[in-house]
């Protein structure tokens, strides 16, 4: 379980201006949840995710995983970045093995685990390829396989499908849902795309100006196809989120 207690983060710009990226955020995320962090650019989603990963230091408050405070990156928390982080100088197989190598797991076991994950993301035949020989969507699959193969029970994803085309993104969303359901890992997924949150999330945390302004249960049935998202409940959730993002200023009653 992840518990976030009064997490705050203040960045000071070179000009001396202070930006409160996170403002006394508190929440808990249970094991096996699929949570989307939603919000507009610059409202704290990525800062919160990077703080969970231990790549960003809080200026106040605490984040703890199973009671242990987060002090830095750890193998209990894997991450998939928006940028293409697949190492181009390693084969696909070596990339997926990287986390296992860091953990000192013997070569034979590493190879077995990596092959298994490459199969699961549909790249079973591409172990010996260089990343340059793969498309952007395939490299994202490698990044996902790498994060899962590392064995972290918590996976943090920072707009991982942002730069991809619509159809590839839908393919990867389905892949991620399959992996989440078959492994039961906790996934925290940053997105600015409401549709993506409706497809993926069990729960949506909406951030605005560094604060959590809403915590919504996305209780739609799966698969979350077009009809399901267009159901009264789906539309209600969309409207609530849009309201928080201040896109529907003309709508009376939207907070």
């Amino acid at each position, binding site marked *: 379980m992840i518990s976030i207690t009064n997490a705050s983060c203040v960045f000071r710009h070179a000009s001396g201006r202070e930006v409160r990226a996170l403002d006394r955020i508190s929440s808990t995320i249970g094991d096996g949840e699929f949570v989307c962090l939603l919000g507009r650019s610059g409202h704290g989603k990525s800062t919160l995710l990077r703080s969970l990963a231990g790549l960003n230091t809080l200026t106040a408050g605490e984040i703890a995983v199973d009671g242990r405070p987060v002090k830095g990156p750890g193998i209990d928390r894997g991450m998939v970045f928006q940028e293409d982080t697949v190492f181009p100088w390693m084969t696909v197989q070596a990339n997926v093995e*990287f*986390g296992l190598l860091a953990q000192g797991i013997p070569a034979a076991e590493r190879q077995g685990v990596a092959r298994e994950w490459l199969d*699961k993301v549909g790249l079973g035949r591409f172990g010996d390829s260089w990343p340059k020989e793969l498309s952007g969507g395939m490299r994202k699959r490698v990044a996902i396989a790498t994060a899962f193969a590392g064995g972290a029970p918590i996976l*943090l994803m920072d707009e991982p499908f942002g730069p991809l085309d619509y159809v590839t993104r839908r393919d990867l969303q389905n892949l991620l849902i399959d992996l989440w359901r078959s492994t039961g890992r906790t996934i925290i997924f940053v997105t600015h795309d409401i549709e993506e949150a409706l497809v993926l999330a069990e729960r949506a945390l909406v951030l605005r100006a560094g604060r959590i302004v809403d915590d919504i249960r996305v209780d739609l049935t799966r698969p979350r196809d077009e009809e399901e998202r267009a159901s009264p409940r789906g539309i209600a959730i969309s409207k609530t989120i849009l309201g928080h993002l201040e896109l529907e200023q003309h709508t009376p009653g939207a907070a």
Partner: protein
Amino acid sequence: MTDIDATRDAMPVADKATAPARPSPEIWWTLGGIALFFIVWTLGHLVIGRYLPPPWQVIAAAVTHFFDSRYFVGLGLPPGGYWPHLVSTTYTALLGCAVGAVIGTLTGLGSAHSNVIHQITRPIVAILGTVPILVAAPFFLIWFGVSENSKIILVAFYSAVVLHLYALRAVEHLHPSFAESASTLGAGPWMIFHRVSLPGSVPELFGGLRAALGAAWGLAAITELLGTDRGIGRVIITTWGVQDIASMMGGLLLLALIAVIADALLMLARRAATRWMPEGAL
């Protein structure tokens, strides 16, 4: 999961890889450039006269005195023609460049990783980097003696500064999310250094190596002009004494030939070491 999406996307690359390797028309332009060089040289000879010998005289001198030359011995050079001098200068350039490259790469990558190392090396590199290396050459001969060592140290000194700057820049150009991704996978500082920063810097390091090696030949020969018992520079300065310009230029031509071959080998090594890089990225 099926591989359908994967196969579709990977096909064009496979096609490119199996395309037959045919010599490109560019080779003819390169040969044309070489021909142009010799034409301009010959024209220069026609204008300047005997102080700029034509290519055939220079090539004749290089070939005649290559392995053995009584004429060279008569001038006070050791027996064996150009050959032992060529070996000596090549040894100096390659060894000096290699030693300097290792030192510069380590300090450069080290400063990119540790702010302490960066702050220590920054003023040193700033001072050493601005010293005109040719002006510094006589001092090396005074400090380390008229020997192979001072030549090697001079070349190493220059290569270290060049490689330091290239290595530092290489890591700066590497996207920080590579190192962050490695750290979220459990990699410590050492693993990030040798599995991420070092391999990620290889393309730029080859660029630095090329610049350093290119300069190494000249630096080695210049120190030899200042005083040494062996090396192409020694042959040039000795034959200068008797106004034998064809033999002087013969030494230069042979040195240039070695430099071109060394550069070509370096580029082959770079190709082998950067097979992972996307085409056209270098």
